[in-house]
């Protein structure tokens, strides 16, 4: 069995809250097995297929897994600690490392050959898209680091987490031979630590320590500026992980988006939740620079994507984005307001929207005064059976549930109601399901087929909202009986959190 056919262990970093979606994604796109996830990490086994791997949308970065250990108790004595860490990180099994390095080389070679194929096809017919359509393999924005060309002139994206990674300087000088193949890899160690171990050492020290040990143990050479590959060490209170990043740039950094607004991973997840079928019409009534539309259009080649925005400057950037992504044929931009959506009733199959309240919106009016109109418009243009996916700030999420909730979410799995203070999220113990949003069916408690109206709804809403934000000004309470809330997911937006609300438009009887 060739190297490429064997299932290999990978792990991905993922934004908090996106792990279940990434787990579903790897299962669907890569036929991954043994999928597990915890906070911020998803582990899986799959074939080495760099093209397919580069298509993962809910991940931050992807790594070949070398080692996964439970956190260990480190001796306080610095000398002993150093020795301990080096021993544990490197471990007994040398082949674990060398095998993974070889796999990494294999990955790069595969990527290179794909790049050549794309280049050749582009030369033959510039208009024709290669089968590996959306993998951007242009040298200037290369997703990979070719083995032969040590092109590390740009440092890889540094993740903004506690315990920042630092590069170390060490020296080792002998070349080593692996499997008869002359291998003198130049490497560097990038370390990230948090929790208990971060109190003892900083990432820089750890990186240096591990780098020295690896260089010594394997006879490899460390290279700060221009290494061939990088070894990533993540030490937290949950795992001790060692891996090699498969791509130079994070997967979350999209080659096809020139200017991002919303984080592409979140945008993709929202589009995923909208459950778009072939030949659908998807609307983003406050599209901004079009991130959601771009992510949706990248994923589905067979649907129509409409974006409206009131801002001319935002639409201009959206144009550039659509243009540079080559999605002119798929994404239609219109200048219009979400309060008067210029579309016919029931003409859209799905609506996905990042409600930019509190940030840049119509400044003069109290934003929350416009909310009823906007929701009403969304309800109007959505077809029965269609999904409405909204991204809200925590206070807005509470506000919407309190004032406009036409239905309460019941059942386990998702804390209900979700307030700004609660730390609810999708149950992390759920095993990844198979493709086609099956995972979602397992996680989302199935809604009972009932419709709540007016008074009963309002009373219920007042009663069930626990704690949360202070009472808002007296706004006219509206109800949208045909919009049924069926899921709320809490996701990290970096500095703050967001809540994704998912509604389905139902037929009222």
């Amino acid at each position, binding site marked *: 069995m060739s190297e490429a056919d064997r299932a290999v262990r990978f792990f991905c970093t993922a934004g908090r809250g996106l792990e279940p979606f990434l787990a579903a994604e790897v299962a669907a796109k890569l036929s991954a097995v043994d999928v597990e996830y915890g906070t911020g990490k998803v582990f899986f086994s799959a074939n080495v297929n760099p093209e397919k791997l580069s298509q993962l949308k809910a991940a931050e970065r992807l790594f070949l897994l070398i080692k996964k250990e439970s956190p260990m108790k480190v001796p306080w004595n610095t000398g002993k600690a150093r020795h301990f860490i080096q021993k544990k990180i490197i471990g007994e099994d040398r082949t674990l490392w060398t095998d993974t390095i070889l796999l990494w080389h294999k990955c790069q070679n595969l990527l290179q050959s794909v790049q050549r194929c794309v280049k050749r096809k582009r030369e033959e017919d510039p*208009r024709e*898209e290669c089968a590996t359509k959306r993998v951007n393999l242009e040298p200037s924005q290369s997703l990979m680091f070719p083995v032969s060309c040590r092109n590390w002139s740009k440092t890889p994206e540094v993740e903004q987490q506690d315990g920042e990674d630092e590069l170390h300087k060490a020296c080792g000088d002998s070349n080593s031979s692996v499997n008869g193949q002359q291998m003198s890899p130049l490497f560097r160690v990038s370390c990230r630590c948090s929790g208990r171990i971060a109190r003892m050492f900083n990432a820089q020290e750890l990186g240096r320590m591990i780098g020295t040990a690896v260089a010594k143990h394997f006879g490899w050479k460390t290279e700060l500026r221009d290494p061939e590959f990088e070894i990533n060490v993540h030490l937290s209170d949950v795992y001790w992980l060692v891996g090699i990043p498969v791509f130079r740039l994070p997967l979350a950094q999209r080659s096809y988006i020139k200017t991002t607004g919303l984080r592409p991973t979140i945008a993709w997840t929202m589009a995923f939740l909208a459950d778009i079928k*072939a*030949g659908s*019409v998807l609307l983003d009534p406050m599209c901004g620079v079009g991130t959601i539309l771009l992510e949706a259009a990248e994923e589905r*080649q*067979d*649907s*129509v994507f*409409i974006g*409206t925005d*009131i801002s001319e400057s935002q*639409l201009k950037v959206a*144009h550039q984005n*659509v*243009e540079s992504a080559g999605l*002119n*044929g798929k*994404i*239609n*931009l*219109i*200048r*219009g*307001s979400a*309060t*008067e*959506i*210029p*579309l*016919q009733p029931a*003409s859209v199959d799905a609506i996905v929207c990042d409600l930019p309240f509190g940030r840049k919106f119509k400044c003069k009016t109290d934003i929350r005064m416009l909310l009823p109109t906007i929701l009403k418009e969304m309800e109007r243009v959505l077809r029965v059976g269609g999904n409405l996916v909204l991204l809200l700030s925590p206070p807005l999420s509470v506000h919407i549930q309190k004032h406009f909730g036409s239905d309460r979410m019941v059942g386990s799995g998702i804390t209900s109601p979700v307030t700004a203070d609660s730390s609810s999220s999708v149950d992390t113990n759920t095993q990844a399901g198979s493709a086609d949003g099956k995972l979602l069916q397992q996680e989302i408690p199935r809604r009972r087929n009932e419709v709540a109206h007016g008074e009963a709804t309002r009373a219920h809403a007042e009663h069930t909202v626990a704690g949360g934000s202070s009472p808002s000004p007296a706004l006219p309470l509206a109800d949208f009986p045909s919009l049924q809330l069926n899921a709320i997911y809490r996701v990290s937006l970096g500095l703050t959190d967001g809540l994704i609300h998912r509604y389905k438009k139902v037929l009222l009887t």
Partner: protein
Amino acid sequence: MLLLSYLRMKLLTHNMLTSHVKGVTKGYPLLIKATEVKLTDVDFNSEFVSRMIPKIEWSVLVEAADTLGHLNDLPRDLPPDYESSEDFLRKVHHVLLEVEVLEGNLKCPESGREFPITKGVPNMLLNEDEV
């Protein structure tokens, strides 16, 4: 020289746009008045076109294409077995996605209000008094 290309309004987009002026009961379909039309090349996907046909207003598409002078030999009535005719689907593809309006306006059939199309983007924003 920097060549900027902008998105252009396709007839597929036009097929869905509606006037939202206050008091208007049926602001659809909008009448196209184009001062600048362009033909472009979009990859043909028969399944996509097939699926879109039931979603669009066929007569509106035909009318719009005719107004722009690009009806060619597209039939005014939908043939019953259109899914199987690639020739037909290609014609629909052309009219739906490859005929683009760069400049012009869209007129509300009821109120007469004109929505401008600038650099291919229809501006459907209403004024205070129209809401």
